[in-house]
């Protein structure tokens, strides 16, 4: 049985659809307006906050009106959250008295409570934010709780905790490395390295335990640390890493040996060259290019003629150019017996020199 749609039913359906479309448009407009207000507020609030920070650093005369306006804004939770964000951000820009002024603002406006609340929150990004804020504002009472976060399973949390502890304690904060079994990202390694300004002589922490870690990223970090502080006494331990199972560790070991080199380094590089993978061999040639040592001249010529990998031949030719062997390279490139590939490699190396 067919049911014919009546005209009034059709009109009713169209009206309902139109009402729904209208409601959708109103919702989108309302949401857009709300987003715009938030964005606009954040921009103007940021200016107010930055002015307050600048005023505090410079020590300008206080304006009562502006202070009242600022106090009024502080009642708004999202303003306080932004204030905290901007303070932490500013802390990375200034040092000395200016940094102390920023810290004073943090305490004067009791933003510590917000940071503590974040630290004890369930959400990882908020906990990480709390850790960052308490460390940036140098709240030493937070050290025990932040130390507990070093074992947190969430990456954002334990990474921020590591950075915070190193910010508080410097080199002594690296104690977590001894039992750390997760990857230490390159970015994290650089952050930690930049936060360490010296190694105290009386320290109980031992670089030689980290260098033997089963965590490759901890070994790589330790090598970077040795390089940064030119820890010459670890030369032998670093040299032994050229037998490490990870190529990445071996490459870092070459860079570290180059940084703490002694009179035997180049000779040692030549003796172990044949047992290394291509990546490590290339790193050795880069080190030779920097060292500009004439004792590797024959070795380089040998690699140029006999090595099977083109990348090694190119690197060897480039180091020979740096050693002033351009004439030797020109002579062999003009020799009729020289094969085409080698001629191209040499031309490339000589061209690089011109560039």
């Amino acid at each position, binding site marked *: 049985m067919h049911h014919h749609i009546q005209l009034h039913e059709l009109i009713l359906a169209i009206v309902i659809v139109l009402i729904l479309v209208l409601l959708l448009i109103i919702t989108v407009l309302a949401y857009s307006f709300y987003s715009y207000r938030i964005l606009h507020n954040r921009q103007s609030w940021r*200016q107010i906050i*930055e*002015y307050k*920070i*600048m005023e505090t*650093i*410079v020590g*300008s005369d206080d304006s009562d009106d502006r202070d009242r306006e600022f106090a009024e804004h502080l009642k708004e939770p999202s303003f306080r959250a932004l204030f905290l964000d901007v303070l932490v951000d*500013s*802390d*990375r*820009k*200034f*040092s*000395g*008295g*200016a*940094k102390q002024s920023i810290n004073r603002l943090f305490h004067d406006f009791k933003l510590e409570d917000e940071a503590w609340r974040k630290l004890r929150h369930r959400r990882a990004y908020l906990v990480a934010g709390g850790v960052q804020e308490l460390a940036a504002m140098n709240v030493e009472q937070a050290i025990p709780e932040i130390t507990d976060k070093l074992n947190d399973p969430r990456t954002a949390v334990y990474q921020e905790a590591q950075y915070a502890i190193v910010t508080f304690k410097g080199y002594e904060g690296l104690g977590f490395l001894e039992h750390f079994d997760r990857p230490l990202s390159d970015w994290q390694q*650089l952050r930690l390295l*930049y936060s360490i300004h010296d190694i105290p002589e009386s320290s109980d922490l031992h670089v030689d335990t980290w260098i033997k870690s089963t965590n490759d990223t901890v070994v790589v970090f330790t090598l970077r640390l040795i390089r940064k502080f030119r820890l010459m006494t670890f030369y032998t331990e670093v040299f032994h890493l050229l037998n490490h199972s990870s190529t990445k560790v071996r490459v870092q070991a070459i860079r570290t040996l180059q940084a703490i080199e002694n009179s035997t380094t180049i000779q040692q590089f030549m003796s172990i060259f044949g047992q290394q993978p291509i990546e490590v061999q290339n790193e050795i040639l880069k080190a030779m290019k920097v060292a500009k040592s004439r004792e590797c001249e024959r070795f380089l010529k040998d690699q140029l003629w006999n090595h099977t990998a083109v990348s090694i031949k190119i690197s060897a030719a480039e180091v020979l150019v740096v050693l002033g062997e351009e004439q030797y390279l020109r002579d062999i490139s003009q020799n009729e017996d020289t094969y085409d590939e080698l001629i191209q490699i040499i031309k490339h190396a000589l061209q690089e020199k011109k560039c």
Partner: protein
Amino acid sequence: MLILIAEDDELILRTVEHKLVKEGHDVVLTRNGREAIEKINELDLDLVVTDIMMPFASGIEILSAIKSIGKKIPVIVLSSMGQEEVVVDAFDLGASDFMVKPFSPNELILRIKRLTNK
């Protein structure tokens, strides 16, 4: 003394400006490298404080511009950690001094005083 500050971070720009004004200097503010180069060409500056990384033209390009027009203006470069190689380039191009961020505005004022013997 007329000092140009080239810095894209508003807080740093304003803080250094207020410090310098307090010290009795006249200050020109620019928020990108291209604007800074224009001001260097137009004005008779006594000193430039410039960030390394900026929109449109870097601190290195500002130093090259100063060198190419033959003006002898002392330049203090503000760099971030990890920009050591760029700082070496900056000195090759005639930078007088550099400071690494985070930096102390008070120390910057001292260095300006030292450079200008004021």
